């Protein structure tokens, strides 16, 4: 007995349900503010429909005005706004909507993309195994894998830009993962950026 699709409209209820579930020990503070920071487990194996993958509104992939001193081809991530920009010539950028994991909030800086992978494998993080001991320690890449269609590995860190099988998490801070895009977007980005691409991650100032 399980809901396998969680639409944005029912996230609050779903988050509460997951929080209650003994399998997912959610932080109550997160569940109470589901719009901002929702606790939602990865749904390994879940395959989103084409409609779900089509983002509308601000998180839809689009070309925007963007001034920067970074060279065209650079990836700039604004975690607070949940956008990833691929810098283009003439004061513009391709903007992608992203979901940011807790991990993604732990660092800012300048790195390089060191590896690219199609249909990456997934290894659930240790705290997830602890919570759900029956989980496979390794899940082969493919449709339904929480890592999605593509991954770009960020050098010198354990972080990566990857796809997702949960399009509804775009625009939110989610419980795990780094920077996640819908599969169509991460595939678009993957095809545009070579290994060696510079990535600049900016956090909002904190008090």
């Amino acid at each position, binding site marked *: 007995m399980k809901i396998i699709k969680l639409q944005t409209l029912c996230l609050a209820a779903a988050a509460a349900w997951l929080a209650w579930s003994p399998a997912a020990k959610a932080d109550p503070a997160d569940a109470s503010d589901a719009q901002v920071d929702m606790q939602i487990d990865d749904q390994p194996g879940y395959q989103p429909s084409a409609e779900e993958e089509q983002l*509308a*509104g*601000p*998180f*839809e992939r*689009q*070309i*925007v*005005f*963007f*001034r*920067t001193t970074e060279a065209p081809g650079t990836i*700039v991530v*604004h975690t607070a*706004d949940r956008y990833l*920009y691929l810098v283009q010539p*003439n*004061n*513009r*950028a391709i*903007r992608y909507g992203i979901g940011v994991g807790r991990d993604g909030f732990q660092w800012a800086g300048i790195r390089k993309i060191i590896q690219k992978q199609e249909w990456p494998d997934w290894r659930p993080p240790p705290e997830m195994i602890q919570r759900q001991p029956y989980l496979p320690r390794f899940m082969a890449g493919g449709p339904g894998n929480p890592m999605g269609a593509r991954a770009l590995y960020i050098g010198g860190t354990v972080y990566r830009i990857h796809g997702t099988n949960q399009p509804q998490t775009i625009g939110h801070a989610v419980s795990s993962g780094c920077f996640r895009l819908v599969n169509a977007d991460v595939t678009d980005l993957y095809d545009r950026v070579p290994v060696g691409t510079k990535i600049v991650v*900016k956090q*909002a*100032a*904190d*008090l």
Partner: protein
Amino acid sequence: MRFLQKGIISAAVFSALTLLSSFGAQASTLDTVKQRGSLICGVSNGITGFSIADEKGAWSGFDVDFCRAVASAIFGDATKVQFVPVKADERFAALKDNKFDLLSRNSTWSFSNEVEQGLLFAGVTYYDGQGFLVSKKRKVTSALELDGSKICVKNGTNSEANVADYFKSNRMKFEPIRFETMKEIIEAYQANKCDVISSDVSQLYAERLGLAKPNENAILADIISKEPLGPAVRQGDDQWLNLVKWVNYAMINAEELGITKANVAQAKQSQKPAVRRLIGAEGDIGKQLGLSPDWALNIVKNVGNYGETLEKNVGGKSKLGIARGLNQLWTMGGIQYAPPLR
């Protein structure tokens, strides 16, 4: 006014607007507002995202929230503000005629609007500019790909001249299709009588909502004219100009410092001098403006910082969904840059 005895002021100044205007530019606007117990703001009635009243008379929008920020700075209370809707062609005369304390009505800061009108702009709250709306089916990613297009523009505005300049300087041609109203332009566009609409970007986003399939139309990233929008005040009251100006700057600085509606309560524990100055934990910035030490804290607490206010009303968290573009902070790819609060 400051040279007068306090007793005379309180005896002479009443909340009635007629009396207010008889004192003219000599009166300290701040004193008047404080004694009246509320701010009177001139706003537009009917611009989605910027200034609009619902059927119950509740106001919302980016320009409206700026008035609430000023009220919060003065009274610590965002509700102590009265909104006076004013038409575009009457707004400047009404301001000079003391019909309100502050004009917050998507007015472009231009030479004629400031110098010829004899007013002062207190800053730029929103960098607007003319842009293009085009069907996504055309797969256009830049205005430079619009050569040979039929472009709908509003008659009697600068829009056509701006488009002509832009196309000429980029060696492109276009055919202008002129209409008197935006309604006619939308109808013509939906009937494929023109392939592109050119107007101010904020307006294009608002009009897009009314199209049959909003999502199938894109607003290009190109901006071809400068339309800096901001609040205006009367000349001759430097204290009031400074106050309005620094309300805007405080909101921008709050965003840059990471002070938000959600965390402003914890800001007192911050060790950062710039944060402590803004919220009034250090220094006497508020006093110098004629305000309490927590004036800026109250703005963020009641209304939000600049980015929060923008995103809520016209940005990603609103139905308009306008990309921040020029209105992003200078540190993040935009040109919103506030002088420091020190």
